[in-house]
């Protein structure tokens, strides 16, 4: 059995984070605020090539870009 999210190019971790985000957003307001704080992520990352650091990019942006790419591929 292949999963729909896998076919569209998501990794398991991305699938989990999307699912978790949906659950958090559907909570009641008071609980939601506390829960959404647990889902915050402000990481920046850089690829290194031959001992040189590349550009600093936001992980959230890169994830969104790769997800968008994956969805255009599947549709």
């Amino acid at each position: 059995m292949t999963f729909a999210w896998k076919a569209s190019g998501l990794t398991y971790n991305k699938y989990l984070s999307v699912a978790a985000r949906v659950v958090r957003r559907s909570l009641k307001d008071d609980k939601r605020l506390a829960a959404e704080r647990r889902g915050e992520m402000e990481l920046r990352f850089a690829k290194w090539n031959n001992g040189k650091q590349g550009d600093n990019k936001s992980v959230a942006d890169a994830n969104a870009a790769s997800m968008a790419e994956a969805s255009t591929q599947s549709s």
Partner: protein
Amino acid sequence: MMLSRAARPALKAVAPLRTFATLREIEDRLKSIRNIEKITNTMKIVASTKLTRAQRAMHESRKYGQTSNTVFEQAETKPLEGDDKKTLIVVASSDKGLCGGIHSGLTKRVRKMLIEKPNADIVILGEKCKAQLSRSSAKNIQLSFAGIGKDIPTFADAQAIADQISLLPSDYGSIQIVYNKFINATSYEATPIEAFSEEAIVNSPNFAAFEIDDEVLSNLREYALSNALFWALAEGHACEQSARRNAMDNASKNAGDMITKYQILFNRTRQAVITGELVEIITGAAASEE
């Protein structure tokens, strides 16, 4: 300061302004040390409040990570042996300094591992270890992450990191996550935890008992990686806070010692200046009497 004190008797006759200046200097010095003490003390208090929260998060995530590892313990998974497979070392440090030697402890451990496996790749979480490792082994670095350690690490952080790691082009035989293990409030140890590759999981002796489909295996591996990362980040964070508390405690104590020392020096110098002035006045008066 000792030099100027010793030189004072000679200088006093020539330029009385100089003694005044040293007095001023000592006063300025005292003031700045007092300010530093205030700052370190505040940082200590902040770190202690954060520490209790970080420790709670650490205990929870440790339980979580250990539960996730139970699968591999039961399956008796072992890292793959063989030189053809590359090793990936993930270093879980953070962005912030002023917390004693916990970052350099990690760096030392990683360097030791690199001597054994010189072609291993490194992924670095946090600016501090990045700065240290980029000096010695920049060629091995594949990815670096920043923005870690502002607050208690979330599972979303760990997931995003695990995701980027699994997107790396090379196929790694074993992934070692090096983090600071929390032993007690004053001692930490840089320890690696193993995150297994798919092959290693398949080859584990008791693997058949779990009846896992081949297709979901890669999911398990990714999930286990982010679990392990989450554990390492949370425990490293708790260590950092506790190390910062200790470092700031020591800094405040040292500042206190210096304050008392300078206070005594200040009083003595002031006394000496007054005595000197008195001597001058009395000699002047005695001379003009005749």
